[in-house]
């Protein structure tokens, strides 16, 4: 939006300038006249802007007084409005505050992006960012090993099998699969569990019990992953509670080694996430539920809705905007499927399904002194995250739901 407005302004100004140039050429005016010309044109331009000003000002005031939102056209007009000096002075404090934030953003978010250059170099500490050798896309080629794909395609002839060999044989591609796989699994499970938990908790009528359950259920959120993984590892070990129970009920004769089987790894990670975060994530839904107008429930009751009916027709639609916003935000986070859990619970036997992009960065980037490779993997991650969030945002918009931008 802001960019668009900027562009409009620039083209208009450019048009004005070309006009002046044309005039200057036709009349062969001196430099002084040329300047005068600009001043005149500018005045005319700002006059026309001032002309719409009172009207635009009214939009905002009326909207504020009568509590209705502005139409798109009105917002457009407002954004075209030129800011007068008086306005600047009045808002000087706000401007200073926002300038600080802009400076902060530039300094800590935009400037560090210059480091991305590292991904296209063979970065060495001795030579630094400025003097390291540029190698183009070599680091990306090293990560993706596209020749493996094309070779498999040639030998097998089918894209599907080629893709399969590629994923199975190239470490980085495998880590992408694991990251996305675990990310989606975590998202779905934690998301659904949090909503279900919030709704169930909301139905509890005993206030003390409700608060107690809520407090206890969000406590695991404050444990660090290293402790949670220790607990998970211990309870699933041969002498842990899970195997004790399995033996007790004669489901297994000898203890089952959960961490030795690749199939179990993703579910274990998802379960750990659910256990740790459900209570915490439910807080926001509980808050959204309390904001629902109680009269709606009363009305539903009069119409004959039972508990289930009220959940389905009042509670769920009531928290849908919250759900959508959180979903869009969390989808961008899919690519951050985690580092600690996989790093702490993984072992050699399950490494094919346990390693995420972050572990790849640590092992092959930092661990091998190959910071360029680490940066390249990081860039890839950022690009995927941006793609994910833009796509999900657009989908949400299309569905007529709340969206981030």
């Amino acid at each position: 939006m802001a960019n668009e407005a900027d562009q409009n302004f620039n083209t208009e100004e450019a048009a004005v300038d070309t006009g002046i140039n044309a005039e200057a050429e036709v009349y062969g005016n001196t430099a002084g006249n040329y300047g005068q010309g600009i001043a005149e044109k500018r005045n005319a331009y700002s006059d026309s802007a001032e002309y719409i000003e009172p009207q635009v000002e009214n939009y905002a005031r009326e909207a504020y007084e009568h509590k209705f939102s502005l139409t798109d056209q009105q917002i457009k007009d407002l954004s075209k409005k030129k800011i007068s000096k008086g306005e600047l002075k009045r808002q000087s404090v706000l401007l200073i505050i926002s300038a600080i934030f802009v400076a902060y953003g530039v300094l800590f978010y935009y400037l560090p992006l210059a480091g991305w250059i590292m991904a296209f170099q063979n970065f060495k500490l001795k030579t630094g960012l400025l003097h390291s050798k540029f190698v183009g896309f070599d680091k990306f080629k090293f990560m993706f090993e596209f020749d493996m794909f094309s070779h498999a395609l040639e030998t097998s002839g089918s894209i599907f099998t080629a893709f399969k060999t590629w994923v199975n044989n190239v470490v980085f591609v495998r880590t992408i699969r694991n990251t996305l796989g675990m990310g989606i699994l975590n998202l779905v499970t934690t998301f659904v569990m949090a909503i279900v938990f919030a709704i169930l908790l909301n139905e509890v009528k005993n206030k003390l019990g409700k608060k107690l359950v809520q407090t206890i259920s969000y406590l695991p959120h404050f444990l660090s992953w290293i402790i949670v993984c220790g607990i998970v590892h211990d309870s699933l070990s041969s002498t842990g509670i899970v195997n004790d129970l399995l033996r007790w009920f004669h489901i297994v004769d000898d203890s089952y080694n959960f961490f030795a089987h690749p199939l179990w790894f993703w579910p274990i990670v998802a379960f750990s996430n659910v256990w740790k975060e459900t209570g915490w994530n439910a807080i926001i839904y509980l808050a959204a539920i309390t904001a629902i107008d109680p009269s709606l429930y009363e009305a539903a009751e009069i119409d004959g809705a039972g508990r289930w009916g009220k959940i389905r027709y009042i509670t769920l639609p009531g928290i849908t905007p919250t759900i959508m916003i959180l979903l869009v935000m969390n989808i961008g986070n899919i690519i951050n499927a985690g580092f600690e859990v996989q790093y702490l619970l993984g072992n050699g036997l399950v490494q094919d399904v346990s390693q995420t992009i972050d572990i790849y960065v640590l092992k092959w980037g930092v661990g091998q002194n190959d910071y360029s490779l680490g940066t390249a993997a990081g860039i890839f991650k950022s690009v995927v995250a941006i793609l994910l969030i833009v796509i999900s945002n657009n989908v949400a918009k299309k569905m007529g739901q709340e969206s981030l931008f």
Partner: protein
Amino acid sequence: MKMKKFIALGMVGMLSAATLVGCDKGGTTTVIDDGGDTGTTVVDDGGDEGSTSATTEKEYSEDEIINWTMFSAMPGSEINDGNDIQEIIAKKTGVRVKETWLTGQTAAEAVGSILASGDLPTFIDGGDGMKELYEADALVAWDPYIEKYPNLKELYTDYEWDMFRQEDGKIYWANVFNNTYGESKATGHNDEAFWIQVRVLEWAGYPEVKTMDEYFDLLEKYYAENKSFTDAEGNTINIIPYTILCDDWRYFCLENAGQFLDGYPNDGSVIVDPKTMKIVDYNTTPTSKKYFAKLNEEYNKGIVDKEFATQTYDEYIAKLSTGAVLGMVDQNWDFNYTVTPIFATSGLADLGCEYVPLGLVVDGVTEQRWHTYGDTVNQSSGCAVTTSCEDPDRAFQFLNDILNQDIHDLRYWGVEGVDYLVDEDGLYYRTQEMRDKLNDTSYKASHVCNYSYMPQWLGTSRDGKNAMQPAEQASEFYAGLSEPLANCFKAYNAGGYPDMIGSVEEDVNATHPWFPMWSWSNELNNDTPGGVAWGKMGETKHKWLPKVVMASDFEKEWASYMDAYSACKPEDFLNEAQGVLDDRMAAYEATK
């Protein structure tokens, strides 16, 4: 409302308390900081008069003493400011060095962040990050000072010094370990071995165990009759006959026994055939296959720990500490420093749970080199002076001074009369009371100052009688042995751990001048095809070796492993190794 808040608070408290209880097995590093180091007076017990009377040295006053820092990329425990012996050394040398250690990162990460901050310590041992320090021009060359200071020059022969030279032809660091002065006094085996609990040998009547088959045979027989035992506190412990650690980088306990079983020394990453001077890949030798087939067989018999592939290092140490595990392959430094003190305090040592090393081979091999005689020079890391030092000459003078016998004794033996006594033959000894005191962490922090990552000696003291370091003093070694262990040594007529192994006694530097190849392979990274292959080989082995051991059909699994292994292009790695070997041999021939 308030009540509810209190309940919530109480629960948080309980939870965090439970958390703390859960981790009380972790390290207990107690550093008692008794304030600043200014104006600390050293309690002079009159003990050091004996040593100062021999040489009349200048005593530095507090104003003259320079305060420097050192970072070692290894976990360690910090000593207190105003540490007794540190102060004595400061007065004698005019330098006081504050040591800091690695906490919660890898060496490379720590060195990386030090370089990025530009805040260099005066002295540094960067471990695996040494090369980065050199590449960032952060180190001062030793060359001019080696000639100037005799104690430093004495550390290594010219050939050994040359091994430390970097691409620009200069020496930037010297490794401080594994360096023997005069005759070796070594009683320990600080290398890899098949370890076995003393009680198993005792039970079998101290038999000769020479081959891998005999070893597992013994474990099987013992386990058939002893499924569990009762420890000193009356708990029943189920016995695990054999476990394998394969957690992350510590998977050498699973992976490299093949080279030893064939009779070769620990080159770490490859075998070097001394006859042809060719590199051999031990991952694919028939012996290695035999070794993994044996492990597979024992796994299916239930002798190998079912959980070995998924246990973490902490779980492994916990298992060992209960005395449950009868045997395993490991490096001494990887478990014994933790496990032995636990055995001593829990009474398991008296039950014969302590481990002795065995030097095993496969049938047909007669010699073995599990124990390395002679000093292994690890030229890939060491003590260095950084460019942040304003007076490098003074720094090297200090490194020279702390190698003087009187200061070396102070560092390792302590203050005479307080930490050790001298008998009429001039031999140093400690009373049990002194030993106990020196085992106390808080006393150690306020009294002992090893400067353990600065130049030092092993072997015989310059007086020709004592050991440079107390751990190697024969009387100290025997005084600390538990009864079952002493009986075992007696039964095998062994004077110490190396005799238990019975490796070929040869000076490794004379017979294996390239040794060890791991000092090269540890430094590999993505820069070369060999380095990339090395990384991939590691990943493949991490996955496949446990699978092979746990397979129901060994031959089939081994074939799949070999396919996956050859896909990593090990030949790139082996060719580079051959190149390095040839270079090292050429350098060696040149000095002859």
